[in-house]
């Protein structure tokens, strides 16, 4: 008797399986057709970029070198100059994404929250040079009023390569 019940249960499971499959055939597909449609996940960790301040439209970096010292891959470098009021002005900020591991340490340590992950994931390029991002590019060119130069911070050995 048990055998017959098991047999009937098994036969029913076959039909139930067929039912599942036919139901799935009419559900919408979950594939994202990549080049035509893009995903914008809210917390995507893309390449590092500067935050644009809403009020001034400028970046928030004060060239304190905290991110450069904390970077475990030694992939960041900056140059700054002092202007007439002895204030540091950032003139160059490069992040080498050949080496960057997107660990977010620089973002966590920045005192002014000037760094963030961008949402960009179309990063394919033809040469390694294209992966050294200049983060100051979207911002107006810095103007330094006096020529007294601050010594540029040096990347640690084996740092930025070109």
């Amino acid at each position, binding site marked *: 008797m048990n055998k017959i019940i098991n047999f009937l249960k098994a036969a029913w499971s*076959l039909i139930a*399986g*067929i039912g*599942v*499959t*036919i139901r*799935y*055939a009419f*559900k*919408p*597909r*979950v*594939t994202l*057709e990549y080049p035509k449609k893009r995903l914008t996940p809210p917390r995507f960790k893309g390449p590092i970029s500067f935050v644009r301040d809403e009020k001034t439209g400028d970046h928030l970096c004060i060239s304190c070198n905290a991110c450069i010292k904390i970077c475990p891959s030694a992939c960041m470098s900056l140059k700054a100059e002092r202007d007439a009021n002895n204030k540091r002005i950032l003139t160059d900020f490069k992040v080498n994404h050949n080496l960057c591991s997107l660990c977010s340490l620089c973002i966590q340590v920045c005192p002014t929250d000037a760094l963030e992950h961008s949402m960009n994931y179309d990063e394919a390029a033809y040469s390694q040079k294209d992966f050294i991002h200049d983060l100051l590019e979207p911002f107006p060119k810095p103007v330094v009023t006096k020529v007294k130069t601050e010594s540029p911070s040096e990347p640690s050995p084996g740092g930025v390569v070109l």
Partner: protein
Amino acid sequence: MIFPELFRMSICAAIVIGFVGINALFLVWLERKVSARIQLRHGPLYVGWQGTFQTLADAVKLLGKELVLPKQADKFLYLAAPLIVFTPALALFLVLPIGPGWIIQDLNIGMLLVFALANISFLGIFVAGWSSNNKYGVLGSMRAVAQNISYEIPLLLSVMGVILLAGTFKMTELISFQQQQGWFIWKQPLAFLIFFCSALAEANRAPFDIPEAESELVAGFHTEYSGMRFAMFFLGEYTAIFVSSAIAATLFWGGWLGPAFLPPAAWFFVKTYAIILAVIWVRWTFPRLRSDQLMAFCWKILTPAALVNLLVTAFLATWIN
């Protein structure tokens, strides 16, 4: 003279070969699309409209592959095996009734020829595995042989019920019997299920595809085949599926019979492709059966069921008459 007959046969042969090629292209595409649908994805999309030329692209790729001949392989058998698998499936087109009077050769033993020819292709599988000089190939072909010869029995027994009721092996008479007395699916539903399962197992397909399962014995009996020879096995398999579905449509679902808004040949193809859709559907629903489960299913479930079906049919046929 034999010339008109020879001419007719040549034309039919050309049409059949052309049809088999196009059918294989279409079925591969259909299978990929249907399986994608079931798995909530798209399938081929970009090569031609909705990926219809994808199979052609794959065929071109296969043509460009290097034709390997393993060093210790038995050369004649190795080269002959794909042909042995493919040709009987092609020869089965001889007795398919596509429309009223549209049959290449209406033999008196049409149904018997179907089973005789279906039996030959498993020899090709056996020879393929053996001649590859590859232990995985041999194992795969041994399993394939065991599976194929076992499932021949329920296949034949299930059809015997139909033949018993109709009293003939001739294809056209089977259909005219159904025209007068109703389709056999209503009288022999169990036989249809048994035939369906056995045909799937004969084609090495669906839940019964241990011999060619990609994740099991490397690639089973066709491990050592590449390029166009590999494509021949697949061509043979898809043709076998088409022919089995056509036979099922003829025997159980009335062949080319149907309401008049479609021509009879169209009804034949509609029914055949509906059964092929069911075959594809079954493949992507059920997990694969292990070799011993396969054998147990055949000998402990299908064969007794087919025998019981035959017994009951014979009893009822005698009693009612």
